[in-house]
């Protein structure tokens, strides 16, 4: 498959990048690792005239932690770089656990945290070649007016299929966005719009520059469970992240559970925090949280396997992730 024609701009500074994005508006797309963007361009899912290559912006690739500011990961830090940061696995086990499941090692050497947080939503009616989609007559998301997942509907169910976002949701992460008028911070949970067609709240002239995790989240136990067919390469068919603070008596002081790959956005299980706080481990409680998870996760036929099975696994994985984190102390330091 060939690539469409485009120009590649290589900003030297963040300001350059922002001004390029502003200048080219909807004609521009950001590229960093390329693992998501390039195949999508080959499939003609979009046709930007300009790619702004932010990979060389060294200032965006740092990984830092301070007890006051917490964790800051620059947007172009590669997933491999994050995994290889020795203290990260100790301080934020759920994040390391999730990133370790992204595709395979070669993809992680290229793919960036920013890219993983801004992934295009996926659907088997959408992530197909130009020929394939043409033969179908397109879909709601691209070149058509019918949703093949939920015919008759006017909503796109293309699925959020990233692994790092649910982990970061359980850590109350915030994103740093840079635009013409400066930087702003947005809570990660407010970044995702739960709309397959319009997935993230990022303005055309804005760039995701970093992800922050508050210092109080350091040391939280946690784990990510990913449903997939192969133990590498695959996108998730479902994903569950759990992070919690457990005191010496085994009482949960605070906790979050988030899902991936079963909705157009990565989502926090809202009732989970309330259910968990102040409680000691019990299978019955874990099942209640798992039940809440399947109330939130709405898998449809956007990917492989069956929606029923994926929903089942959201339940099982939620319970298991809680069990591992809480009862077995996975990721405790």
């Amino acid at each position, binding site marked *: 498959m060939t690539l469409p024609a485009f*120009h590649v701009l290589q900003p030297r500074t963040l300001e350059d990048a922002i001004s390029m994005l502003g200048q080219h508006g909807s004609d521009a797309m950001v590229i960093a690792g390329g693992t998501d963007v*390039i195949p999508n361009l080959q499939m003609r899912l979009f046709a930007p005239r300009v790619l702004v290559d932010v990979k060389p912006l060294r200032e965006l690739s740092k990984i830092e932690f301070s007890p006051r500011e917490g964790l800051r990961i620059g947007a172009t830090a590669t997933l491999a770089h994050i995994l290889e940061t020795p203290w990260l696995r100790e301080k934020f086990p759920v994040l390391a656990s999730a990133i370790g499941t992204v595709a395979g090692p*070669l993809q992680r050497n*290229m793919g960036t945290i920013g890219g993983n947080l801004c992934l295009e939503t996926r659907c088997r009616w959408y992530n197909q070649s130009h020929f394939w989609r043409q033969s179908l007559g397109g879909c709601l998301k691209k070149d058509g007016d019918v949703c093949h997942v939920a015919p008759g509907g006017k909503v796109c169910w293309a699925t959020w299929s990233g692994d790092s976002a649910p982990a970061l949701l359980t850590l109350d992460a915030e994103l740093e966005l840079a635009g013409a008028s400066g930087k702003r911070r947005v809570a990660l949970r407010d970044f995702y719009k739960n709309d397959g067609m319009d997935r993230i709240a990022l303005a055309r002239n804005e760039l995701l520059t970093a992800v922050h995790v508050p210092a109080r989240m350091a040391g939280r136990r946690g784990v990510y469970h990913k449903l997939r067919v192969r133990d590498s390469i695959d996108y998730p068919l479902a994903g569950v992240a759990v992070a919690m603070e457990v005191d010496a008596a085994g009482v949960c002081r605070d906790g979050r559970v988030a899902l991936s790959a079963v909705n157009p956005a990565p989502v926090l299980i809202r009732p989970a925090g309330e259910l968990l706080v102040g409680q000691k481990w019990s299978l019955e409680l874990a099942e209640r949280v798992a039940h809440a998870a399947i109330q939130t996760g709405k898998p449809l036929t956007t990917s492989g396997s069956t929606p029923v099975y994926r929903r089942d696994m959201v339940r099982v994985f939620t319970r298991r992730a809680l069990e591992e984190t809480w009862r077995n102390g996975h990721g405790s330091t």
Partner: protein
Amino acid sequence: MNKELMRLHVNGEEREIAITPNRLLLDALREDLGLTGSKRGCDDSSCGCCAVLVDGTPMLSCVALAASYEGREITTIEGLGGPGELDPVQEGYAEMGGAQCGYCTPGFMIATKALLDRNPNPSLDEIREALSSNLCRCTGYMQIYESVKYAIEKLRAKSSAPVSAGR
């Protein structure tokens, strides 16, 4: 689209090519530089046949824009070792059956090379993990592991060999 002149540093040589901005590194290597050892097996960065080393790190050249890799040190399978000067990794894949049809082999060898450069004594699980971006349809992977082990032994023998006093 107009072509632009750029320099790629490949296998220790500076090469100048004229390419359009949408040229993939894989195509620049294969078509502009005649280095056809790197292969294309898929269209969605899922098979690893195109892997090359970029500053020593294995990456997929099929999702890399050539223009973005100016100034980086790129090593393809041709740069690992030519006839008569095979790298131990190449020797291993040749001797132990790691290459059947040979199409995925350059990508596997690149991933193996990067692994052994970082970790000269990997466990089987570490080998499996390091090679888990690469697909092989021939071997069932067992002889690939044997090939990696051969390379490990070879490298170990090399590094522990006494410095030649023959000069």
